[in-house]
C-alpha cells in the first residue's frame, strides 16, 4: 500500500539509529515467520489471494498462469468447420487488412466445386504480427480468431514463430445457421473428416516449443519452395 512519508527531520530517538532498526527487525521477523511457516495460497488471481498468513505474491509462471482478461487477444487460430476443414475461403481480406503484412495466403480451388476456394497455405509470422486484431475484424467468414488465450510459445529459432495452416487450424468448430455446409453435405469422405479432426490440436495449456511444433511442418521447405518460385529477394 502506498503511503506518504512526511519529510520532517529525524527526532532524537530516530537519529539514535538503533531503536528504529529494532522495530524494523521485528517487522522483518514477522514477515519471515509468516512466509516461512505458512503455506502459500496458489490462487492464480493474485488479487484474490488469501495473504493473511503467507504474504507471497509470486506466480510460479509456467505452472501457474495469471488468468487473462476477457477479450484478451491471444494467438491466432483458424476456425474449423464441423468436418475439420478451415472455414477460411481464402478471400485475402485479412492479409489486406494486416498492417504488419504478416499473413501469407495461397488460395486453391476446392476440387469438384466451381465456386469455393480454400487456403492451400495460410502462414502468419507471429514475430511480425502487432496483435492489432484487424485480421479478425476483416474476416467475412469468422474464419480467423484470436480467442486461444495463449501467446505464441517461446521458440529457440525465429522459424518456430511462423505458424502455418496446420498449426493454426485448431479449437472448437464454429457454424452458423446459413453456413452452406449445413445445407449441403461435406464433400470430404468420412475418413478424411475423421483424419481432419484428429489432426486438429486442442487448445494448449502449456506453451512449449515442442508442443506447438506440427509434425511435417518445415519452414525450410516453405522457404525453398518460395525460392523455387523466385519470390525470394524481391
Amino acid at each position, binding site marked *: 500500500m502506498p503511503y*506518504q512519508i512526511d519529510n*520532517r527531520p529525524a527526532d532524537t*530517538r530516530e537519529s*539514535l539509529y*538503533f531503536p528504529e532498526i529494532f522495530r524494523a*527487525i521485528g517487522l*522483518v521477523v514477522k*514477515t519471515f515467520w509468516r512466509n516461512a*511457516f505458512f503455506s502459500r495460497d496458489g490462487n492464480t488471481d493474485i488479487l484474490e489471494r488469501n495473504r493473511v498468513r503467507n504474504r507471497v505474491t509470486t506466480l510460479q509462471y509456467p505452472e501457474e498462469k495469471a488468468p487473462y482478461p476477457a477479450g484478451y487477444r491471444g494467438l491466432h487460430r483458424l476456425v474449423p468447420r464441423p468436418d475439420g476443414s478451415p472455414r477460411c475461403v481464402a478471400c485475402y481480406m485479412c492479409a489486406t487488412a494486416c498492417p504488419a503484412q504478416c499473413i501469407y495466403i495461397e488460395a486453391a480451388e476446392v476440387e469438384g466445386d466451381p465456386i469455393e476456394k480454400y487456403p492451400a497455405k495460410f502462414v502468419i509470422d507471429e514475430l511480425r504480427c502487432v496483435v492489432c486484431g484487424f485480421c479478425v475484424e476483416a474476416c467475412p467468414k469468422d474464419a480467423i480468431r484470436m480467442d486461444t488465450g495463449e501467446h505464441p510459445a517461446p521458440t529457440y529459432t525465429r522459424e518456430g514463430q511462423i505458424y502455418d495452416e496446420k498449426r493454426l487450424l485448431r479449437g472448437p468448430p464454429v457454424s452458423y445457421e446459413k453456413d452452406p455446409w449445413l445445407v449441403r453435405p461435406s464433400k470430404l469422405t468420412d475418413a478424411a473428416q475423421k483424419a481432419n479432426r484428429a489432426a486438429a490440436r486442442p487448445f494448449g495449456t502449456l506453451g512449449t516449443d515442442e508442443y506447438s511444433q506440427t509434425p511435417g511442418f518445415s519452414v525450410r521447405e516453405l522457404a525453398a519452395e518460395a525460392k523455387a518460385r523466385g519470390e525470394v529477394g524481391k
Partner: protein
Amino acid sequence: MKRFVGMWLVIGAVLVGLVGLFAAFYALAALAAKGAVALGFPGFFGSSIVNAVTLMAVTLMTLAALLTVAERKWSAAMQDRIGANRILVLGKFPLGGVPYLLADALKMLTKESIYPAARSKFLFELAPVLAFSPTFALFAVIPVGPEIRAMGQTVGMWVANPDAGLLWIFALAGLSVYGTTLAGWASNSRVGMLGAVRASAQMISYEVSLGLSLVGVMIAYRTVNLQAMAIAQGADVLGPVPALGILLQPLGFLVFFTSSFAETKRAPFDLPEGESEIVGYFLEYSGMKFGLLFLAEFVEVVILAAVTAAVFLGGWHPVFFEGWMKANLDPLLFGAICAAAFLAKVILLTWLQLIIRWLLPRFRYDQIQGLCWKLLLPGALVNVFVTGAAVLVDPSLQVLAWIGVAEIVAIFGITLAVSKPQAAHGDAHGHAAHAAGH
C-alpha cells in the same frame, strides 16, 4: 497447517541432527586423543587435529556454503518471494533450494578465469588467499563445546585454546583487511581500487570500536581466553539467571555486533562492493578466485556469529535445563547437546544478520564513519568505564548485571516509545527549517 508442522519438524530434525553430529565429532576427537596418547604425545594433539577437520573443514565450510542457499531462500521469505526452487531433484523435489549449492560450485569451478593484463601478478593471486585464510583461521579459537571426559580422555570441541583467545581474534580480523585491499590494488583497476580504499578505511575505523566493545567483556570475566569466558557465562548471577554476556554487556553486544557486521562488508555496510555504483574490490576477479573472495564473506558471517555467540550469548551453554542435563546425561551426550546449542545460536545469529542485511539500505560513506566515530566509539568507551566502575564496586558482577538489565529495559523502552508522528506539525517544522536555510 501442514507446512507449519513441517517447518517445526525440520527445525527439530536439524537440532537432533546437530546433536548426533557433535556426538560423532566428540567420539572422533576422543579416539584421536587416545591414539595420540598411545603414540606418546599429549592427548589434545590428536583431538585438535581431528577437530581442525571436523570443525573447520566440515562444520564451518558447510555452514558458509549453506549460507549461500539461505541468502536465497531466507531473503526470499523476508521479501514476500519464494526464492530459488527451479532445480528439482528427481524432477519433483526442490529440497529447499539446497541443490543450488552444487550448481553454484559447478559454475564457479568451471568458469573461465580472466586475468587483467595490468595486474600485479603475485599479489593478484595472493589476495583471495589473504582474504580467506585469516577469517577461516579465526574459527580455530572458538570453543564450540565444553571439555568432557569420553573414552578415558579429556577432549574439548575446539581446535586451539590459546590464553590470548580474543587477542587472536583481533589480530586475525585485522589481517583480513589486507586481502580486500590487495585485491583492489593488485587488479589495477580504478573501481577496484576505490572499493579497496573504502574497505580499508571502513575496516580500520570499525576495528577501533570492535576492540573497545570487547574490553568490557574482558573486564567482566577477567580473561581473554574464550573457553574460560564461556565457562564464566555459565555461573549464576541474578538468582538462577546465568551471567550471559548479553546480560552484563548489552551495550557492548550492540557495539560489537554492529562493528563486526561492518567488518564483514555486507549490506548495509557494503560500500566496498556496492554493486550499483562501483562493483567493488573483486571486480577483476573471476571463476574460483572470485568464489574464494565471495566465500570469505560468508565465512566471515559465520565467524562473526560464532564469536558473538561465544562471547555474548553464553557460548556453548544450552542455558535451559543445563544443570539437569549435566547431572543425568552421559558426558558425551551432554557435550554434544552443548555443541549443538552453540551451533543453533550461530545459525540464529546468521539469520539475524541476514535480516539486517535485507532490512537496511546501504549507508552513505559519511554516515558509516559517523555511526562509527560518533555513536559506537563513545558508546563503547562509556561501556568500558561503566563496566570498570561496576566491577570495581562489586566483583561478584551483581551490580553489573543490574546495570545490564537497566540498559536492556531502557533500550526496549526507547524502541517501543514511538512518538505518534504529527504530520502537520512535523511539516511546518520542516518548512520553517527550510526557510531558515535560505
